[in-house]
């Protein structure tokens, strides 16, 4: 009886091992036949290619591993920006779709239907080349507030030049830890004594006072560097100083968030509509204000419906960011699975690392969202 249960599993296991073994053996034999060597040693070699935009210090004299980190951080950067904006736009549009105002409801619906039905790659090309055509050359750019310059060569913004930046960061971390403690204390107090503590005010206070102290006592100092126009040749200009966000980053983030927001909007709509009308009426009848109804009754229940499909959208956005290669944004695929792969020819090694990296990123997002989902789920007693 037991044997009959185990046998199929055993066979499955053997088959899986055989298939993997066969493919890796096959790859090995074929690589050997064609004189291709295998190994990860190249990661420490000098990369000898440059990247246009990097969050960490990098140039061609660094290693391929460093180039990998540059690509990875750029992927994370555009994903995080995309997720934040997609969430904001998605929530706003999702709620707008439930509006009783006909114009708002229709506008939101048209937006959703329009953007989710056009392939993402086309949208990325559209935003990139539309932006390139529409944006002014550096010398013709109108300054925004006198210090921001949006040009075809990028968005030039003032940068902070820090002294003792680490102390400032510690102070922010300390503030966050303090807020976590205050929140835990306030929750306990409410459970035990029924009194409420103004957590929000105290939190804001911490966030202002601690970093402020770091300026006054910690020797932290920040000055602002404003981009200045510079002439490269008779007709070509750029900006020097400050921070430069490449147009590739802006158009990619724009395309990703506008596209993904449509799906999130539908999740939000489904979530809010999924809370039965009786819940709201019951909440109102016990004297809760409309705000409290939304915060204490509708949202906690809607979130349970919203979170799982939204997780999928976050994962999609992160994976879709690999389309960056089409418009020269130096993400993981362009830098590592593109240039580095070409220069080393190590296809199997680099593709396997890249796949593992995306897998890790996705699983991390998944784990976090599952944790959050569990946290807000109804705890049946």
């Amino acid at each position, binding site marked *: 009886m037991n044997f009959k249960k185990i046998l199929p599993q055993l066979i499955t296991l053997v088959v899986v091992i055989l298939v993997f073994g066969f493919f890796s053996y096959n790859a090995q034999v074929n690589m050997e036949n064609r004189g*291709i060597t295998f190994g990860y040693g190249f990661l420490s070699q000098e990369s000898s*290619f440059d990247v246009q935009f990097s969050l960490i210090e990098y140039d061609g004299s660094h290693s391929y591993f460093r180039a990998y980190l540059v690509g990875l951080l750029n992927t994370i950067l555009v994903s995080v920006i995309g997720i934040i904006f997609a969430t904001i736009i998605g929530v706003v549009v999702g709620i707008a779709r439930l509006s009783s105002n006909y114009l708002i409801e229709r506008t939101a619906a048209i937006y959703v239907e329009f953007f989710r039905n056009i392939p993402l790659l086309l949208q990325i090309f559209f935003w990139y080349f539309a932006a*390139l055509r529409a944006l002014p050359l550096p010398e013709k750019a109108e300054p925004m507030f006198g210090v921001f310059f949006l040009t075809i060569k990028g968005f030039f913004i003032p940068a902070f030049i820090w002294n003792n930046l680490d102390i400032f960061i510690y102070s922010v971390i300390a503030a966050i830890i303090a807020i976590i403690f205050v929140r835990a204390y306030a929750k306990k107090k409410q459970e035990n004594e029924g009194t409420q503590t103004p957590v929000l005010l105290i939190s804001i206070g911490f966030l202002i006072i601690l970093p402020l102290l770091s300026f006054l006592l910690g020797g932290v100092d920040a000055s602002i560097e404003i981009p200045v126009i*510079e002439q490269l040749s*008779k007709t070509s200009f*750029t900006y020097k100083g400050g921070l430069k966000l490449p147009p590739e980053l802006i158009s990619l983030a724009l395309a990703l968030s506008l596209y993904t927001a449509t799906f999130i909007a539908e999740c939000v709509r489904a979530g809010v509509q999924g809370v039965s009308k009786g819940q709201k009426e019951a909440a109102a009848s016990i004297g809760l204000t409309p705000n409290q109804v939304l915060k204490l009754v509708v949202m906690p229940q809607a979130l349970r419906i919203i979170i799982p499909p939204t997780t999928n959208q976050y994962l999609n956005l992160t994976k879709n960011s690999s389309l960056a290669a089409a418009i020269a944004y130096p993400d993981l695929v362009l830098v590592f699975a593109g240039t580095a792969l070409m220069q080393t020819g190590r296809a199997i090694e680099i593709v396997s690392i890249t796949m593992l990296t995306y897998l890790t990123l996705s699983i991390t997002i998944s784990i976090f969202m599952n944790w959050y989902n569990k946290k807000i789920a109804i705890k049946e007693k």
Partner: protein
Amino acid sequence: MFKLVKRLTSVVAMFAVLFTFTTETMAAKKSKTLKNTQKKGFVRCGVSQGLPGFSNADAAGNWTGVDVDVCRAVAAAVLGDASKVKFTPLSAKERFTALTSNEIDILSRNTTWTLSRDADIGLTFVGVNFYDGQGFMVRKNSGISSVNDFKAGVSACTNLGTTTELNMRDFFNSKGIKYEPVTFEKADEVVAAYDAGRCDTYTTDKSGLAAQRIKLSNPDDHMVLPETISKEPLGPVVRQGDSVWEDIVRWSLNTMIEAEEYGVTSANADSMKTSDNPAVKRLVGAEGELGAALGLDNEWSLRIIKQVGNYGESYKRNIADTGILPDRGPNELWTKGGILYVPPAR
């Protein structure tokens, strides 16, 4: 019990699939590219996604160019018909993987011959069909007339995964100039971005610059700077490990160049059979048994010359007459001041 039987059958089926895979790899172990090509009836050739003069498809899908002609020559030699080629357009990034993973048998895609490519990643370069060098294109009104006029902060558009990317860094580093590399996977996007003003300069092989300039909205507003910053010998590539196939591709290319040297053209090839010069007679297969050494018949080289033409004809048809690079420069025969020099066919 029935369920168990069902599962067992699926397992057996899987083993059957595995087994056929294994036998196939065993057969391919000798890498009989020639045999496979003859069996299929066409040559599988990897080309660019559109580079006028080298490999470019017209509206009807007909490929032309000097790189294309190398594959056509091989098809004429091996299959007897220069039109029996299946072209696969590849990006710079895809090209080597396509070759090593058996999707194509010849990569003839303006590819630079370097040591690491030749020795490290399972490829073999068989020769050079175009001697090139990297240059820069700028706007005429920019006032830049030499590479020495570039200043720190200059942004340069180019293709990713090319030797261009590395040369560019070497060049700007040696000048001590900080630059901004903007790299795209496809050449069309590089051109579009440069055209829109995203970059101050567009850098790639000079032949490529000359060819891509035609695609700009106002080609006359742009010019290629005189300096050449690198050596770029471009040539066809095959997979490592099949020396017969390697020889066929190498000598198909050499035949075209040698035919030009001896004045054998597509028009007069047949009449050359009765030439007094034994070298010419060997070239058109009227003397010697050169074809047998390659596993081909003795008319192989005659077919190349008759159907594709000699190197000079191919250059004129594809590069000179299209206005891309009327001057042959180093790609002239060694007897006429260039560096085209191939080993003798004997």
